[in-house]
């Protein structure tokens, strides 16, 4: 943790409702928060508690119903397509389901090339681009030579998520929102993916917003923990405070669901 904390993402009364009338759901309900530069924040909640919706609000992929988001201390302005593209140079995401994250008609090369182009590398010589892509793949222990001209759906779920991390490696954003990046992955690949994620975060010093339903995992990776229950943030604080000395009933329940939480977190069971 840093001594002097600079806020990078702040939410003020952020709310998102879907539908209207009888089908109205308040997915995110007046949440306030401040994420600081360089920290690892976990957002923990059950299925349906609004984590993904909050992530999409932060990314600007959906519009808030109420409230606002501040980015680097100023009110976020993503009112036009150009401004959004600019915003997305600073904030990126890894989605929950790797199998639906890729356009099945695009080859892997295109996915990585897009990232290079987004970083202003459009006019780089082809050899340089390939070099960058090889480096990115190497970072997550993938072989670019084996991936080139293949489609993402030809990879395993774990490989797809690693490719996502390679993408982030190329993009080097200020903030990364990882929305349950390991929930669809088999247990063995999980640990490696988390490792790459933390390693990447340490390397480029980005803020990592880690979304999970697994409070143990949150404790293992994060500095700060937010607990979400049905769209509301019910508890927040340092990982130690929230998990070792929980106050909200909901947090206690989440913790009691994970019996091993007081033991040293054991990666082999992740």
């Amino acid at each position, binding site marked *: 943790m840093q001594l002097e904390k600079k806020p990078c993402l702040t939410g003020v009364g952020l709310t998102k409702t879907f539908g209207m009338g009888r089908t109205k759901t308040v997915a995110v309900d007046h949440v306030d928060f401040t994420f600081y530069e360089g920290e690892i924040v976990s957002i923990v909640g059950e299925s349906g508690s609004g984590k993904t919706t909050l992530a999409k609000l932060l990314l600007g*992929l959906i519009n808030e119903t109420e409230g606002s988001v501040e980015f680097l201390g100023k009110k976020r302005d993503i009112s036009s397509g150009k401004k959004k593209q600019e915003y997305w140079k600073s904030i990126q995401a890894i989605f929950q389901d790797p199998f639906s994250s890729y356009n099945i008609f695009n080859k892997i090369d295109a996915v990585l090339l897009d990232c290079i182009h987004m970083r202003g590398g459009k006019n780089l010589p082809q050899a340089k681009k390939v070099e960058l892509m090889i480096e990115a793949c190497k970072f997550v222990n993938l072989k670019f030579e084996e991936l080139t001209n293949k489609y993402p759906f030809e990879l395993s779920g774990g490989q797809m998520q690693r490719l996502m991390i390679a993408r982030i490696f190329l993009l080097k954003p200020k903030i990364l929102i990882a929305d349950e990046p390991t929930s669809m992955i088999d247990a063995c690949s999980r640990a490696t993916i988390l490792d790459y994620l933390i390693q990447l975060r340490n390397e480029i010093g980005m803020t990592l917003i880690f979304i999970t339903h697994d409070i143990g995992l949150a404790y293992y990776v994060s500095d700060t923990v937010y607990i979400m229950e049905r769209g509301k943030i019910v508890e927040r604080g340092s990982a130690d405070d929230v998990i070792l000395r929980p106050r909200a009933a909901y947090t206690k329940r989440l913790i009691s669901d994970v019996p091993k939480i007081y033991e040293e977190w054991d990666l082999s069971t992740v």
Partner: protein
Amino acid sequence: MNNTLRQIFRSGKFVTGFAIFVAILLGTLIYPLIITDAPLTIIGQGTFFPPGIYVSVYDSLGSTRYTLDLGEANFNRIASRLSEEDRIAIKEWLVAAGIPEADIDTADTQKLLTQWEENFDAKKSIPGMTNAKRNYYVRLDKSIDGLLSAEGAILAQANAETGALEQTGTVEQSDFVNVQQVANVRFLPLGTDNFGRDMLTELVAATRVSLIIGFVAGIIATLIGLTLGLLAGYIGGPVDDGIMFITNLFTVIPSFVLLILISFSIGQEQRGAFTVAVVIGFTSWVWTARAVRAQVISLRNRDHVNLSKLSGHSTVHIILTDILPYIASYVVMALILQISSGILAEAGLSILGLGPKTTDVPTLGLMMNWARIYQADIQGRWWAYLPVLVTIAMVTFSMNLMNTGLDQVFNPALRD
């Protein structure tokens, strides 16, 4: 992609539909290369000549004659000349003369004539028979005698000076000509229509024009529907509201009614085949737009679209690469349906007399319209409408079959 194609061509329904469609298409392309007549030339003076081979009588007189002694020739000749009415009249007389009805078979020429020869007596009075009827039977008897005579026909020519007929030759009953050697023979597989035009040539041209109308209408409808559906579905908000407002307007007024009104107001002279196709296209895009919109709405919040946004792609780029490919199979199916319904719409319009103007090109609908106006159905001239109906049915059937086949490939839940 290759895999999908392979699957498509493994689908029995698609392959059957495709084969029928390609056969029809090839037919319309190859036939005009062989028979180069303009499809609307009138060749027959008179209406509805039945299908068959037409041999020039004049030319056959001039052709080399061969004498063939065929046992059944005489019988065939009489059988073909004795009309159905005469046969019934003969039967009536024989029954009245006391021959049991069960013994008489109007289809058996030989037996019928023998019975006639044996029993007919002009003087025999049959109760209740009018004088006129009696005279008719006398005439019938004479003409049957004529039929049975073995004499040839005399050919005569008028003398240029005196005007008197001079015999130039005879045609014996056993004279034959070889059809190959007759200078003018015309095969009319489907006879002629009400104007005396070769039905088959006309039908082939009509099929081609109708297919073009279907394609033009289908492509216009699909392009409009696709564009509006993509915009409404992807952009949403006021754009969606605006587009859906127009779409709903078009939904409330049935497109065929709209089609009739527009066609009517354009007027007969302005209505070329192309105009009609365009009008059909502009009135039938509605359901494509609705269907595409629904598909796009379910796609626009998918993660791959979000990832594409995060990769800095513009809206146009996203629509073209992240939405369009996912609905492409669907759009192809919609296009096929639009083409076949375009063909049907043209037929419907033409039957109402609102189709393309009749002087340019034939269409399947126009041919149906002509057959209807000239009462081909009532007169039993099946060749004037049945082949047209079958063609319309085969074209739309083949396209719907292809569509079902595609549907089964793209929606595995429908596979059987």
